[in-house]
């Protein structure tokens, strides 16, 4: 009886699967509704868009414009016009693509191990697209080249392997801290211009003149925010005093706490210093290096780093100050952080975002969230849900928080200091090299990506997603006005900031990419720690954790000797 059952099931299954083979190709969708039918009269292009917080509305828009603009264009014999078929929620991230056997032709993906694919010859050379002006239609183009919209760093990084471009930056996102402007206002957490106003330096009335902020310029976006780490710590204490919890981050992912370290490293060390982490070379620019500690105080020298002294990368001062701040937070974690942020395995980033949005509405305000600037996109459903929480729930004001640019009053630079943003996404647009021998496809793919990088397309991307593409372009004042409050604050920052990219230009790093993985790992006392947070929880000091990352000079020479010029 049972054998018969098994035999029946087996034969039924084989009949089914055999049927699927004879039906020419996959049968998994046999009983399903078709959304997009292939139009045999048009040329097709397949585009894979990584699923995630950025969504695909922007892609649908650009496709619609492209198809319209190219509707009379002939790419293949006997066909007219273009049909672009997007995989809107592609699931494989850019580190694990199997490009040679993949069917997709154009990709928008993140965490892309760019140089690896270049090395293996798996990306199509798009130098001609990058070095030409962006297309706005079959016969129209912009005046300036796409290359001119790339920062010098990005140009150097993309062409470092062999001088050609194999990708164009997709979106840009920054890791760091955002703050609730309303909480800061309501609890008077801004610093006043008058430091000795009898209120510990914080504003007393809403119309008090705020301090100049981290960039040293009065009357702009960062006024009243802490300009030094001393002030930042003072701010945290003040928050606790007035009943505001300073920080929230996802307790299940201790790695998020590194974002504040990275952000401080960028703002105190500056863009040149932060870039050293991805090159192990400062390219003749002097940077601050910690040579040792005198008690708790770091001994610092200014010097340049080249391939022979690449090990000094692990001794950059900005990083130490980042750890110092995080150490302060962890040592006071019960009062400085939301309770579930303290290592709780159930507290995801989505949960942290929702708790943050709700906090002020339920009378338990939290001042700052540590997350990427895409958090506001991810939190859209949480924001919708929060609308039931009474008055003011709809009109929220969150903003990107520039980090302090100095340690204390003493080393505060005179004059203005540019903000620095850390773009850790490695998000790119590229074309699969496996279409190289199909000229019509290549032409179509190149037209499409060029079209995606016209100013119009870049602007459309930002107005749709609230996030910037990794290129230089402006928004019209009307477009800027239409951005939501948070996106506007990020855009404002970006206009003034230098953006640090994580794409190495140094051949030594390209060949040893492992050097730029796990930048926060530390080894000491026969153990390794993935995050400083772990180390600080275990009661180690910032100095000890920092020194646990240092590389021995002799070992450096023996490991990387062949990259060191004599």
């Amino acid at each position, binding site marked *: 009886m049972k054998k018969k059952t098994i035999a029946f099931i087996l034969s039924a299954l084989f009949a089914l699967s055999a049927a699927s083979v004879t039906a020419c190709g996959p049968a998994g969708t046999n009983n399903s509704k078709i959304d997009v039918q292939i139009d045999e009269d048009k040329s097709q292009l397949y585009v894979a868009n990584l699923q995630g917080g950025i969504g695909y509305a922007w892609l649908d828009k650009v496709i619609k414009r492209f198809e319209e603009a190219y509707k009379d264009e002939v790419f293949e014999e006997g066909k007219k016009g273009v049909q672009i078929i997007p995989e809107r929620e592609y699931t494989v991230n850019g*580190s*694990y693509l199997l490009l040679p056997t993949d069917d997709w032709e154009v990709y928008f993906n993140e965490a892309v*191990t760019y140089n*690896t694919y270049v*090395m*293996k*010859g798996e990306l199509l050379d798009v130098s001609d697209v990058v070095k030409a002006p962006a297309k706005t239609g079959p016969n129209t183009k912009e005046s300036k080249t796409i290359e001119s919209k790339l920062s010098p760093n990005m140009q150097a990084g993309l062409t470092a392997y062999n001088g050609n471009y194999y990708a164009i930056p997709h979106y840009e996102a920054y890791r760091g801290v955002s703050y609730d402007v309303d909480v800061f206002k309501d609890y008077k957490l801004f610093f006043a211009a008058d430091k000795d106003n009898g209120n510990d330096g914080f504003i007393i009335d809403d119309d008090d003149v705020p301090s100049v902020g981290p960039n040293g310029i009065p009357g702009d976006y960062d006024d009243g925010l802490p300009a030094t780490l001393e002030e930042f710590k003072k701010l945290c204490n003040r928050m606790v005093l007035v009943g505001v919890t300073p920080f929230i981050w996802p*307790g299940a*992912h*201790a*790695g998020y706490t590194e974002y504040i370290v990275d952000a401080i490293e960028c703002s105190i060390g500056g863009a040149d210093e932060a870039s050293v982490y991805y090159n192990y070379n400062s390219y003749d620019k002097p940077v601050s290096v910690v040579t040792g500690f005198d008690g708790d105080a770091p001994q610092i020298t200014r010097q340049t780093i080249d391939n022979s002294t690449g090990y000094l990368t692990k001794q950059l001062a900005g990083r130490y100050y980042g750890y110092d701040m995080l150490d302060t937070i962890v040592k006071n974690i019960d009062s400085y952080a939301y309770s579930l942020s*303290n*290592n*709780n*395995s*159930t507290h995801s980033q989505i949960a942290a975002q929702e708790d943050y949005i709700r906090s002020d509405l339920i009378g338990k305000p939290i001042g700052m969230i540590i997350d990427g600037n895409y958090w506001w996109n991810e939190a859209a459903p949480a924001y919708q849900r929060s609308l039931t929480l009474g008055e003011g729930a709809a009109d929220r004001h969150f903003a990107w928080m520039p980090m302090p640019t100095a340690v204390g009053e003493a080393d505060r630079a005179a004059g203005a200091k540019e903000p620095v943003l850390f773009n850790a996404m490695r998000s790119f647009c590229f074309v699969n090299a496996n279409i190289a021998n199909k000229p019509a496809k290549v032409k179509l793919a190149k037209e499409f990506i060029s079209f995606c990088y016209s100013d119009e397309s870049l602007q459309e991307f930002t107005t749709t997603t609230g996030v910037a593409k990794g290129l230089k372009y402006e928004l019209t004042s009307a477009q800027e006005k239409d951005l939501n409050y948070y996106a506007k604050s990020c855009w404002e920052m970006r206009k003034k900031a230098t953006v640090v990219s994580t794409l190495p230009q140094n051949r030594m790093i390209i*060949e*040893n*990419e*492992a050097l730029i*993985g796990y930048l926060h790992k530390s*080894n*000491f006392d*026969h*153990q*390794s*720690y*993935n995050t400083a947070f*772990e180390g600080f*929880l*275990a009661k180690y000091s910032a100095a000890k954790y920092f020194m646990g990352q240092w590389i021995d000079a002799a070992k450096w020479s023996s490991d990387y000797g062949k990259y060191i010029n004599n």
Partner: protein
Amino acid sequence: MEFAKKRVSAQIGKRNKLIFYTLMMALPIIQFIIFWIFVNINSILLAFRTWDFDRGDYVWNGLKTFGNVVNLFKEAPFMLSAIKNSVIVYLIGLVLGTPLSLIFSFYLYKKKILSGLFKTILFLPHILSALIMVLLYKYMVDRAIPAVHEMITGSAMKGLIANTDTRLYAILFYNVWTGFGTSTMMYLGAMSGISDSVVEAAELDGITPLQELWYITIPLIWPTFTTFVVVGFVGLFTGQMNLYNFYGDDAPYALYTFGYYLYKAAKEAAPLPQNYPDIAALGLCFTAIAAPCTLLLRKMLDKFGPKTV
């Protein structure tokens, strides 16, 4: 004449046996050659190659890569604690998990009260999949237990996984707690194959349940039992202690097991052609140690186990 006939038929029987054996083995072996050997041979051979940046391809490198394996260990100070964790999780499985699985399946085999319910419940973690079980467990130990503690004592308490001092034990507990499904079911399957007459004869002698388990049941399922002991031993080298399910790719180093380390090292090297040979070499070295140990254990279990009842 009778004798000769027998011999001829025995020879025909022998030949038929071989033909049958060959025919039946052919498909699985061909499949193995294509989908294991063909698929993996390249990544195994990578241990003897290195990435040439100028050519953009691998070139032969002899045994040089194996020298790097030592460095991999030197640069991993957490390795000692990883090995310690692997041993702990293995031993706990052996001294706690295995005996419990055995007595549980014995209970079910004897169809004592509520066997049906217990069978379902023991299997439930497997049905729900590790992903959801881990999620539920996290809420239990990091939210529910602290809340109950606070209700009773009035003082706050850190969750058991949130607390770095207790998280290892919380995860070890999870491994035992959800690990009964497969082994219990397999033991049960083997036990229910035991001939009723043996058991009935023993029962007539007035055997106690414990004696029956020890003197009859275990010896009769000995091959199945030792298979699980061997599989458990393999876990000593490859087991991840469910770390992936708890932490994804970001498990704290202090919790690493050897298996998780291997998984991570390989996953990180996968996108980087220049790093892959080191991992391939590590894998081969590791096999050279683990495989003989496992085979030896297997041999010893066969040798010293009960042969018959």
